[in-house]
């Protein structure tokens, strides 16, 4: 189904849709407060973007360096060309150790590879341990947000789900009570697990280690008890130097949830004595995207979710309407690049307001890429020819910059001056259920340019 039809289903539940919208806007505001309390915020974004750009330009070298150093640390490094190979590698490690029970912490990559159903088919009991992911798993759903997996579910529904699966009191919906029940249930799973699997937030070439960030502490409990730790990473998680982490850790949690830093930022550089640690490096289409000058920067994503929280379409249509592992603005780029036929409606689930680009901590030009992608899909140049993606040389986003600026300008003006009936007419799917936020009088770009002017010049 295309995005508009699925979004319609979400919007039909008015009360839920409004709550969803508000809850995410609240997270966006927390992010804003955090960002504005750091005077050098823009410099951090710029630096992060430049580190990523450099890393991409020497990706092969840094991957080799990471592999060599990780191996020295006693970590076993594996390479997977696609999802299938990734799943086979994980299964073979688990089989070798006769693992029956696996605990997992959040990893969008393993969602992308559909690891859980694969392992379950092979008789392995897989438990997602992030609270939101556990709720989603018990309800046999997929996450609707990359940082807040259960943001589409109301507490009463969590109560029902826990009543059925964990034996909590019927009708209970207090988040404290429900979280306590999940804590006890999952503690038991942690203690019984034969292996722990995690994602990777950052991998450091220089030191051959990985960093995992959580608030719950589930990754650390999951890998601290069993003898086997498997960490799965997309190859783009790489950073050249340990000190690059200072920039990214300052940006990640502030952008994601408006926290100064995640509760736990754990650095792993080898197995515990008598244990094993594996890292699986996955391509699964990433090297294709790397070839494309228009889209390669989408690989810089650190999965903070800020572009989702701010997106007027995402907030009003819910993550599941994208039918993608990664929804929202960044997902509307990454997913159609991998499966254009199935996901050709996603780049159109966008108002080109540019808010995603403004909040992205690594400065991915999200709305420009979405615009470019629309054109490719419109001309059917992508559909059915995903393999040719890299060879396509579109005259370049640069030549169309004026168009973006113009379109952005129109959107901002029209939001401020258009009468309500125009914005909220039946043809405008996004105005359907509630007022749009006030549009800024100036785009970020204009504001920035002006501020620079006032400062007496200087390059942006």
């Amino acid at each position, binding site marked *: 189904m295309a995005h508009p039809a699925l979004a319609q289903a979400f919007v039909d539940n008015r009360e839920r849709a409004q709550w969803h919208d508000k809850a995410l806007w609240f997270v966006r505001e927390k992010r804003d407060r955090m960002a504005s309390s*750091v*005077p*050098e915020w823009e410099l951090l974004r710029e630096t992060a973007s*430049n580190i990523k*750009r*450099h890393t*991409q*330009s*020497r*990706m*092969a070298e840094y*991957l080799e360096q990471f592999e060599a150093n990780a191996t020295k*640390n006693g970590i*076993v*490094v594996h390479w997977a*060309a696609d999802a299938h*190979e990734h799943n086979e590698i994980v299964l073979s490690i688990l089989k*070798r150790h006769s693992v029956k029970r696996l605990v997992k912490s959040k990893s969008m990559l393993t969602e992308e590879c559909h690891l859980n159903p694969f392992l379950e088919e092979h008789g392995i009991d897989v438990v997602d341990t992030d*609270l939101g992911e556990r709720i989603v798993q018990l309800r046999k759903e997929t996450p609707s947000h990359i940082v*807040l997996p259960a*943001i589409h579910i109301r*507490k009463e529904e969590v109560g029902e789900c826990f009543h059925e699966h964990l034996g909590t009191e019927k009708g209970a919906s207090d*988040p404290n009570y429900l*979280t306590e029940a999940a*804590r006890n249930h*999952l503690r038991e799973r942690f*203690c019984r697990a034969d292996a722990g699997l995690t994602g990777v937030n950052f991998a*450091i070439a220089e*030191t*051959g280690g990985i960093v995992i960030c959580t*608030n*719950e*502490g589930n990754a*650390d*409990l999951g890998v*601290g*008890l069993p003898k086997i730790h498997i960490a799965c990473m997309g*190859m783009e998680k790489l950073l*050249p*130097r*340990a*000190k690059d982490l*200072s*920039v990214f*850790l*300052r940006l990640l949690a502030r952008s994601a*949830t408006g926290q*100064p*830093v995640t*509760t*736990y*930022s754990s*650095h*792993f*550089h080898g197995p*515990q004595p008598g244990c094993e640690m594996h890292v699986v490096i996955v*391509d699964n289409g990433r090297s294709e995207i*790397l*070839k494309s*000058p228009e889209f390669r920067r989408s690989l810089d994503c650190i999965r903070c979710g800020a572009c989702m929280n701010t997106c007027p379409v995402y907030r009003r249509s819910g993550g599941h309407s994208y039918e993608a592992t990664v929804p929202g603005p960044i997902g509307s780029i990454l997913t159609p690049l991998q499966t254009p036929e199935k996901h050709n409606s996603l780049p159109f689930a966008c108002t080109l307001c540019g808010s995603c680009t403004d909040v992205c901590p690594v400065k991915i030009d999200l709305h420009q890429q979405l615009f470019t992608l629309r054109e490719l899909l419109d001309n059917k140049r992508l559909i059915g020819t995903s393999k040719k993606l890299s060879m396509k040389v579109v005259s370049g986003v640069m030549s169309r910059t004026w168009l973006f600026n113009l379109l952005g300008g129109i959107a901002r003006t029209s939001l401020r001056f258009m009468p309500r009936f125009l914005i909220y007419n039946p043809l405008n799917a996004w105005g359907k259920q509630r007022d749009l936020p006030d549009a800024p009088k100036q785009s970020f770009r204009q504001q920035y340019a002006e501020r620079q002017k006032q400062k007496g010049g200087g390059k942006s």
Partner: protein
Amino acid sequence: MIAKAPKSSRETILGKIRAALPQSAPLPELDATGPWQTFEDREARFSEVLKFVGGQTVHVKTVAEADAHLRTLEPWARGKVRCTMVPGLGDTTFDLKAINDPHQLENVDYAVLRGHFCVAENGAIWVTDDTVHHRVLYFIPQHISLVVPASQIVNNMHEAYARIKIGEHRFAGFISGPSKTADIEQSLVIGAHGARSLTVYLVDEL
């Protein structure tokens, strides 16, 4: 020796990346002294942020003072299974050295552990695995205290990374506050999987 995945995927992936190689771009210089946020009163900032994320800071002169304070904490007094990595601060109710499987730490109610330094900007404390028998001690107890020399507070993460050698410990990390989640309707709940409370002792004479 563990058998590795076939080399072929490795070569394929690296080959594809090499073929795609984007134009080179310089690696930004990163300096600990750069134009980064600093604080006149680092300790005040640290305590404020730690409070914001659900922890508490207690500044004491001596370990004995910290010990006296710890004994007034309800989770410590109530805890039956306790341990400490700081002699004179709290007590250990079981034979830590005899523990060879981290699962045996499952029932620890309170642990007093060492932290190396604090970061003012975000309320984080740097911990490493060489000061504990099992790294899971940072995560599995119901409550923890981290004990840090009061003089050891850096301004920001850049200063933090300038003073640590990443890779020298198999496990190390920043801890900022007790474990938490907001996965049910964005309501903040303290005590998700890890510690339910974090008390940081800043000690002058440590």
